[in-house]
């Protein structure tokens, strides 16, 4: 070993050395503290990192190690170490922002585990150096490699350095009240230059479901791996669940119970706050016929099953939300006023903040009286997107190369 030219063995040895150094750091200094990198520290770190890269580029003919670092023989070991460490991360339960209690090593918060950090730094270094060498040499024939390496370098470096500047806050907005305070993950209150007023909150729900319920387990009965249930989509929805022929007599999207003769509830139309969906159903197994109301209930109205026999009942699970959205007024200190709708997958961007529909009063469901928004700002995002774009171009380049190789062989 260590006779030039170095092989992959030396590459693996260098990686092992990095891991040893990482372990020493871990035991002496504790886990890596990412939040210390907040602006301007991260910009300074980026400048230093790039400076070292430039230095390595200039010295690569004099210092053999630098030349080696950007070779395949270092790339493969680095990737192997990164795969192993990341796989360990994927196999172990990870702490939210620090290692779990009974983990003296620190692998349960892999993102701050020094060997992990150093191996990824090595990867970024290799990528940056190789991209720089190829660009300076003008090796544009290898454009897929240049784009991939530069793109991944940008995403790795700027994504991690920028993470300390990213803010994710939750804002709880009650109907009709403007709100400008938001909570971080540690429940600290932040007063923002942006205020949101929830004007209305609406949920569209999927059609109600009728299921055959096991009386003992109170669970939907399964048959051949499929639940015995059906979606009611209008009409009398006649269907067969197990041995029971079921049909729907009446559907009330908004209903409330009225007293019935026995202990069960019957429903009538009631389009007011607190109403629940209910179905009047009839089930027959050839011998007996049962008829009655089923409902998923809500905060105020208990759910109700229709008892069929000793074994089975009919039930209606909670209706699943198809879409929920908040109509809001957004006001900023600089005087921007906007009315808009925020829904899942359709965030709204206002003055550097992306505002997401995060949650609502799930107990109240369609009668939710508040909406929770997540406000996210990430000043490094545009740079990361440039990196993502470059990786995408590089990946398409790989496709082109695969084609080119085929033609070359011909």
């Amino acid at each position, binding site marked *: 070993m260590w006779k030039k030219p170095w092989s992959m063995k030396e590459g693996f040895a260098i990686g092992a050395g990095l891991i040893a150094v990482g372990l020493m750091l871990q035991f002496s200094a504790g886990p890596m503290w990412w939040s210390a990198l907040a602006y301007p520290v991260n910009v300074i770190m980026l400048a230093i990192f790039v400076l070292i890269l430039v230095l390595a580029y200039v010295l690569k003919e004099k210092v053999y190690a630098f030349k080696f670092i950007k070779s395949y023989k270092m790339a493969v070991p680095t990737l192997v170490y990164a795969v192993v460490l990341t796989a360990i991360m994927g196999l172990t339960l990870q702490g939210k922002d620090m290692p779990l209690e009974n983990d003296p090593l620190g692998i349960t918060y892999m993102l701050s585990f020094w060997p992990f950090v150093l191996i990824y730094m090595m990867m970024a270094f290799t990528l940056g150096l190789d991209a720089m060498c190829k660009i300076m040499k003008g090796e544009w024939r290898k454009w897929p490699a240049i784009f991939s390496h530069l793109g991944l370098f940008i995403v790795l470096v700027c994504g991690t350095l920028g993470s300390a500047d990213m803010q994710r806050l939750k804002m709880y907005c009650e109907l009709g009240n403007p709100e400008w305070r938001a909570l971080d993950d540690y429940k600290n209150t932040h007063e923002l230059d942006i205020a949101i007023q929830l004007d209305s909150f609406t949920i569209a729900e999927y059609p109600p479901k009728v299921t055959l319920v096991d009386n003992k387990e109170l669970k939907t009965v399964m048959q051949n791996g499929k639940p015995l249930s059906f979606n009611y989509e209008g009409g009398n929805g006649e269907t067969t669940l197990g041995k029971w022929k079921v049909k729907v007599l009446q559907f009330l999207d908004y209903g409330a119970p009225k007293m019935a003769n026995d202990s069960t509830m019957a429903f009538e139309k009631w389009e007011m706050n607190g109403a629940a969906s209910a179905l009047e159903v009839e089930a027959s197994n050839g011998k007996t016929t049962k008829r009655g109301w089923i409902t998923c209930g809500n905060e105020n109205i208990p759910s109700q099953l229709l008892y069929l026999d000793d074994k089975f009942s009919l039930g209606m699970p909670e209706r699943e939300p198809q879409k929920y959205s908040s109509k809001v007024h957004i006001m900023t200190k600089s005087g921007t006023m906007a009315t808009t709708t925020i829904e899942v997958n359709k965030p709204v961007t206002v003055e550097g903040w992306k505002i997401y529909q995060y949650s609502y009063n799930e107990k109240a469901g369609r009668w939710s009286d508040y909406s929770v928004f997540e406000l*996210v700002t990430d000043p490094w995002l545009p740079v990361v997107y440039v990196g993502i774009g470059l990786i995408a171009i590089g*990946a398409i380049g*790989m496709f082109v*190369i*695969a084609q080119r*190789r085929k033609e070359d062989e011909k």
Partner: protein
Amino acid sequence: MIWDYFIIFAVAAIICWVAGAAFAWKSKKSIAYGATAVGVCILFAFIVGLWIQLERPPMRTMGETRLWYSLFLPVAGLLIYSRFHYKWVLSFSTVMAVVFVCINVFKPEIHSKTLMPALQSPWFAPHVIVYMMAYAMLGAAAVMAVYLLYKKKAGNSLTELPACDSLVYVGYTFLTLGMLMGALWAKEAWGHYWAWDPKETWAAVTWMAYLGYVHLRLGAPTKHKSALWALIVCFVLLQMCWWGINYLPSAQGSSVHTYSMG
């Protein structure tokens, strides 16, 4: 429900694929191409029907992704066959596709219409389709690696390894695009493009593992055996990413990618 007719479409598609594989052995290329392609079209017609009936892309449950996988395997088989003319390749892709079709026949998973709001996005279909395409290509590469390791005892003059490389290159392209689309979608749906969710962690593992293979081939082109074993290890890691994490304690309750279980 259209799912009740799956068996008919499945049998028709399988008959076509088996015929295609048989004609490939007899070197009747155009019939082999035609039969396999017809089989693909039949299964695709079923998927389209399912899509229309469910009123959402059929990509939420494991059963639904398996459907796409069994569609893309013969496609991958056709691509390799058209390029390298191996007689066995269509048989391999057919056997694999049939296995996945059979799983869906015997263990159908819930195919309800509901699609949670987080999945209602224009990114959903391309994200999953591109990933399934990548999995099919990389699956084909892994099968080829096993074949080369045991059939040819990995001699020094491996002429088929470039075929593996091409498959990995194409698979890598799809894998990368799937991952990047996932990142852009995650930013729109969950507020961050990369959150080290268990599924994302394993996607990163898989992606880097295949990058390892690509660099190994470029850096040490004569290490055939290592390359073939690397392909198999990579594919095992890919299985973790695809369905293995559903059984991992580390992912229980903490992954946001848990739509497939319900």
